[in-house]
């Protein structure tokens, strides 16, 4: 991983879709559609899916799993249809676990490609300049050198 001033990457996933960039983008912000997949689980029931789709607006999804309500909340930081969506993300009441998710969508000749990047709390960005490699590399490298199986 090259040296960079960007915040350390925690998780990055790339996925291709047959649907257009616009449809894939809208699926994140349309409550009816997002309620079907975004924070839904096979065994849970989506009891609340509220979205205020503007920069500074927030979302709140409640999935009821075995009688326990699991809340997913966050705030939109960037909305640039159909290219980019950035939001903060908290699970449950553990606000210490605040993190940032960026969704970048690139239109292809047929369908589109989506790149999802999940970063730790923005406060970790201050350490980015001092961090030569992304977190994944750091952790894997350390785990290897410490003899932990990964």
């Amino acid at each position, binding site marked *: 991983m090259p040296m960079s001033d960007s915040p350390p990457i925690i998780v990055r*996933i790339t996925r291709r879709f047959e649907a257009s960039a616009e449809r*894939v983008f809208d699926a994140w912000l349309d409550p009816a559609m997002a309620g079907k997949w975004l924070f839904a689980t096979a065994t849970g029931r989506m009891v609340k899916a509220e979205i205020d789709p503007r920069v500074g607006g927030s979302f709140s999804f409640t999935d009821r799993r075995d009688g326990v309500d699991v809340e997913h909340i966050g705030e939109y930081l960037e909305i640039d249809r159909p290219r980019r969506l950035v939001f903060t993300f908290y699970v449950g009441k553990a606000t210490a*676990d605040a993190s940032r998710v960026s969704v970048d969508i690139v239109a292809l000749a047929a369908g589109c490609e989506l790149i999802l990047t999940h970063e730790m*709390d923005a406060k970790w960005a201050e350490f980015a300049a001092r*961090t030569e490699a992304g977190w994944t590399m750091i*952790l894997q490298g*350390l785990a290897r*050198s*410490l003899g932990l199986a990964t």
Partner: protein
Amino acid sequence: MVEGQTHSLDAVFHALSDPTRRQMLRSLAGGERSISELATPFRMTFAGASKHVKALETAGLVRRRVEGRLHLCRLEAAPLAAADEWLRYYTRFWSDRLDALDHALRSADAAHVKRRKR
């Protein structure tokens, strides 16, 4: 698992954000070291090294014991595994979510075709 570990994970990521501390961990992988031994490669004072060890201790990555005038440090690898687990958890989480998105888009297509056929 993710909800309960947030504080310790914060401390772990903080501890690991510094290259000196990462090097100290590698050194400790070889066995117990005194603070002076940990400080040597960095030409650091005892106080400076002790501060780094304190951050590692807070994260639960290092345990310190005092033997006479010696402060001996030992590696505790479990929190590192927790941080690694955090990464794996969210990799799986988003991978599952994107599968669900693909499925939802296909279902919407199928419903649309059905309506048009009617």
